[in-house]
């Protein structure tokens, strides 16, 4: 598989983050949930949406508009900071991962994340989260409407700021 993500070093913090992150544009999303189905299959070989590591929700204020909650592999990763067992780590590409061997399923990562991305594994007492499919996210490939994109961080911040109405 061709990895499209490269490591990016942040000197001030002396950490490595991914150079690209997922960005979702709700104005393009059709709510087809192909990203969720492909994600669940890629990681767990099932179409069960409980296993999807990203979530598509309908905007309660605007019916017919969909928003996607997905991991941003943050520079200041709250889940990583909160984990009491050091089960959450950054790999050499900067992808924030949960080690299933170290995780004790306390769920603090999920509480610490501003949008509760880490979710409990339906079968096991561990938490799980997006691993960007090791550098080639399947959700992006599945999105025909191109609502989900993999963009360089700076460009992504600009787009998110625009989507929020100008405030970064």
């Amino acid at each position: 598989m061709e990895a499209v993500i490269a490591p990016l070093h942040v000197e001030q913090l002396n950490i490595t983050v991914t150079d690209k992150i997922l960005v979702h544009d709700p104005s393009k999303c059709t709510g087809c949930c192909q990203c969720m189905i492909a994600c669940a299959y890629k990681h767990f070989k099932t179409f069960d949406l409980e296993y999807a590591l990203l979530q598509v929700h309908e905007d309660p204020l605007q019916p017919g508009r969909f928003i996607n909650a997905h991991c941003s592999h943050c520079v200041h990763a709250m889940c990583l900071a909160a984990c009491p067992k050091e089960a959450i780590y950054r790999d050499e590409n900067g992808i924030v991962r949960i080690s299933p061997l170290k995780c004790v399923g306390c769920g603090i990562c999920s509480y610490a994340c501003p949008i509760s991305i880490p979710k409990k594994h339906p079968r096991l007492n561990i938490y799980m989260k997006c691993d960007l499919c090791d550098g080639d996210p399947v959700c992006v490939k599945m999105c025909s409407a191109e609502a989900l994109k993999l963009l360089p961080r700076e460009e992504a911040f600009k787009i998110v700021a625009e989507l929020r109405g100008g405030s970064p």
Partner: protein
Amino acid sequence: MSERASGAKLHWLRLLKAAERLTKTKLSEEIQVHPWRRPLPSEAPPPAKPALARDYEVGLVYPVTDEAIEARAACGLPKIPPTAHLYRDSVYEKRRLLEALGVLKRFQFNGIERRFKY
């Protein structure tokens, strides 16, 4: 309402039931009943299995039913469409491709018995 139409209705109701049954056996729910069960070795997700089996059988997702043949004739079309339904060689070629790609093995699909092992 004609007899055929009511037959079609029953068919659709059965389809809904089948879809509900298939999607109800979610891994997340199954684990509550069988906590120690290991995941099955087939990589084909249960809801997609009927379509995958039909795909192997006829080369397309839907077979041409009697109802469809009747309707096609009424629309002024040849009874069997000029797809793999008519050109059976395409189906055999597709099966050879599926075998060569190793898909049947991964999905644990028995091409002779036309069914999934798991």
